[in-house]
């Protein structure tokens, strides 16, 4: 396996994000696997932005923690990241800005002079730097120029040409001055076509595939790009995308849409979800399907808006006053995000409950590539399953909440002539009318609770196991976005210790008899979570009586690193 890390840094607000994404798309189109990660402060201008891309000829889902090619658009980039440089690292910099003190190979590119000579703007420094990077990595400008054309298509040929010359200058400078340093690490591979997307974009695509017709949101980092992506697509997808006045309006608009018969979803982060919680409870008692996307960031309160954490699991699992069923799913990578999103819409319709997709900043905003055929196959094979949703009824009066052995009542889409009913937030009779009868109360509570048994029988997914569980000495237990780093670590440890990874995606509710046999073996279990309290561990303790003596818990706003898992395993 051949893997390297390219990283670009500079002042926030000057195009680092666009350049990083261009690099990701270029390596992806060349056939490589990639994973990128951005660091940025909660500011528009000022502060430091960094964009790191891990490139490999094999599947990759996390940063190895070292940098092989560091592009410094300013001195701060070097100062902040110099300790991560690998032994044979290259540094692209401009000696008119600063001179790095390092044993790494220095590649001077006169950003300032080129900008000046071509009358470019600050932001085009990125284009020069990317052109130079591609030369140093041994590939050409073909794909980059295509991306430039795409980006500036509407602005005309002159603008395209103007931008392309910055890439060409950077490229030519390397060929002319650093020919002997060129690394042949980006030779095109024969791979099938790949798509580059973030977790938020993967959710957006999944929602479209699942025939979601209404998405409502209020901007909140790191979930906002779902709103902007779906809004950008709305003329094509014909989804109604509403940016409402607050999160309470958001969820109640979506509940209105869902009641009226369209698949609906909302998206937010922990703080916005806190505002929605009363309405989650309404969805519970009124049995209105809804998909809720939560992208976590470190709390409490405003916390660290642009950093990552898995700190809202228990809050989410227990969100809502009163007792009612809900399902919580946690994808670990882009394939799972697209797939579980489409599944979430089916589960919401089948069980007529809120289904929550848990993401976090790390998964939501990192890009990774997936095979295009994975997506096209999903599009082809996905079946919209609306469960007991009905469009006609012969029953008079129609009983919206009729008692049933599986807990699910036929749900009539409103508008059918001759019928009517209400989705009542009060406890109700089978016909939907308000009641305070003890007998009716018990009937409805039991009916709603029975959905979970049905879910366990029909749709609960036992966690995936990576590695040979029977032979494993060390068993990692985790959920959601930690999947990438754990799979990468398993590869690194392969020659030294046998490991397995139990990856939970269907994190709540947990089917006890399916999960316990995985966790009560005579193994060295290590619980890995991106939070301080080991929240999933607590959930396992509470529901299954299982506890962990070894944990890796990270809560500094950064994702769990390969090295800290390796250190933990090596400790014994």
């Amino acid at each position, binding site marked *: 396996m051949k893997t390297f890390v390219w990283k670009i840094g500079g002042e926030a607000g000057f195009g680092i994000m666009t350049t990083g994404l261009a690099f990701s798309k270029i390596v992806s*189109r060349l056939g490589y696997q990639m994973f990128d990660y951005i660091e940025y402060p909660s500011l528009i201008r000022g502060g430091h932005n960094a964009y790191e891309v891990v490139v490999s000829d094999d599947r990759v889902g996390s940063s190895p923690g070292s940098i092989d090619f560091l592009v410094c658009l300013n001195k701060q980039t070097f100062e902040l990241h110099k300790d991560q440089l690998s032994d044979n690292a290259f540094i692209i910099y401009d000696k008119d800005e600063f001179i790095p003190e390092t044993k790494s190979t220095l590649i001077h590119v006169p950003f300032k002079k080129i900008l000046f000579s071509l009358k470019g703007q600050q932001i085009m420094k990125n284009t020069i730097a990317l052109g130079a990077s591609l030369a140093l990595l041994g590939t050409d400008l073909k794909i980059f120029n295509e991306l430039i054309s795409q980006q500036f298509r509407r602005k005309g040929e002159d603008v395209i040409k103007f931008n392309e010359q910055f890439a060409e200058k950077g490229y030519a400078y390397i060929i002319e001055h650093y020919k002997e340093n060129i690394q042949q690490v980006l030779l095109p591979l024969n791979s099938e*076509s790949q*798509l*580059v997307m973030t977790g938020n974009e993967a959710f957006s*695509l999944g929602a*479209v595939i699942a*025939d979601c*017709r*209404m998405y409502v949101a209020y901007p909140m980092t790191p979930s906002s790009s779902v709103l902007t992506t779906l809004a950008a*697509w*709305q*003329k*094509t*997808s*014909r*989804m*109604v995308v*509403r940016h*409402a*006045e*607050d999160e*309470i*309006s958001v*969820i*109640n*608009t979506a*509940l*209105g*849409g*869902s*009641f*009226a*018969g*369209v698949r*609906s979803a909302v998206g937010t982060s922990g703080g916005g979800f806190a505002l929605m919680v*009363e*309405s989650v409870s*309404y969805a519970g008692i*009124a049995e209105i399907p809804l998909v809720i996307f939560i992208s976590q960031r470190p709390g409490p309160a405003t916390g660290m808006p642009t950093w990552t954490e898995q700190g809202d699991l228990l809050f989410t699992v227990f969100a809502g006053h009163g007792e009612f069923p809900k399902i919580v799913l946690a994808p670990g990578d882009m394939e799972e995000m697209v797939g579980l999103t489409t599944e979430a819409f089916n589960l919401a319709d089948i069980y007529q409950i809120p289904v929550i997709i848990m993401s976090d900043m790390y998964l939501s905003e990192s890009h990774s590539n997936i095979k*295009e055929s994975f*997506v*096209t196959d999903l*599009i082809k094979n996905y079946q*919209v399953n609306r469960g007991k949703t009905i469009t006609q009824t012969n029953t008079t009066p129609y009983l919206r909440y009729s008692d049933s052995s599986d807990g699910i009542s036929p749900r009539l*889409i*409103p*508008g*059918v*002539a*001759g*019928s*009517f*009913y*209400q*989705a*009542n*937030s*009060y406890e109700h009779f089978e016909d939907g*009318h*308000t009641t305070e009868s003890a007998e009716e109360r018990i009937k409805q509570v039991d009916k709603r609770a029975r959905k979970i048994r049905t879910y366990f029988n029909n749709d609960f997914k036992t966690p995936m196991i990576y590695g040979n569980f029977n032979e494993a000495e060390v068993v990692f237990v985790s959920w959601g976005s930690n999947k990438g780093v754990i799979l990468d670590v398993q590869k690194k440890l392969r020659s030294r210790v046998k490991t397995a990874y139990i990856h939970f995606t269907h994190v709540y509710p947990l089917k006890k008899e399916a999960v316990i046999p995985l966790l009560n073996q005579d193994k060295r279990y290590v619980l890995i979570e991106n939070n301080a309290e080991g929240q999933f561990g607590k959930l396992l303790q509470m529901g299954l009586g299982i506890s962990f003596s070894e944990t890796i818990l990270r809560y500094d706003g950064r994702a769990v690193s390969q090295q800290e898992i390796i250190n933990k395993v090596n400790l014994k």
Partner: protein
Amino acid sequence: MSTVQDFTGYQPTWCPGCGDWGIGIAIKSALVQLGLSPSSLFVAFGIGCSGNMNDFLNAYAMHGLHGRSIPNAIGMKLANHKMTVLAVVGDGDCYGEGGNHFLHACRGNHDITVIVHDNRVYGLTTGQSAPTAQKGYKSKSTPLGIIEESVDPLSLALTQGATFVAQAFAGDTIHLGQMIKQAIEHKGFSLVNILQPCLTFNKINTYQYYMKHVYKLDDTHDKTNMLTAVNKARGVYEEKYALGVLYQVEKTAFHEQIVQLDSTTSLKDRDKFTDYNQLLPYFK
């Protein structure tokens, strides 16, 4: 043709003499006159004595959370804009807990009719001050008299973009029915604020009180003049309550401006999206 009986659900639980009875009758008669049926109607009910109409008025209805009926109504309209949509709410519901939704719905000119039972007191929670209570009003939650000025809901609606603003009195159900009918017929956001006595908890704003303090707008009132309308609305602070349509203008409704909705097919009924060749290049 539907009848009042078609819309009639369970026997109401309101106090004898409550203004809600008159409002219930006026709504049903307006619906019948408009040729609507329980199956062609969405209603979002709030929580309160007004919201309790949920069990007495037949429709495809959401009896949701306190304050949140307006976004429920907006969602229903967007999903199936061929249905008529009402929000039946109270003053605390709409102007207190859900005040933010109210002003933004006015702004959006969503094609919904908001019918507010304004009795200036919280009845269902047994007698606390409402946002429309008069300054100094003594209640269980404000035994020394409420310090805030009352909300002026009509001005609020007028200045935030509502395209139909009317006021009626629960003691005059014929006029009230006319207001509701006109509001439903209006395309865009319509408000009917109903002055309503609460016999049990509000001993100030009684039937007698309103008989003395209300007046009907006559033909000379210019419904298209916002400043005149605001002037009439501000009469609330001088205990002069205008009844009738204060303001009405034609503007394109929210759902009519959503390009992906067409006039003939609702969002619910349109075909599934399939043209992924338009989307996937975004990721390459």
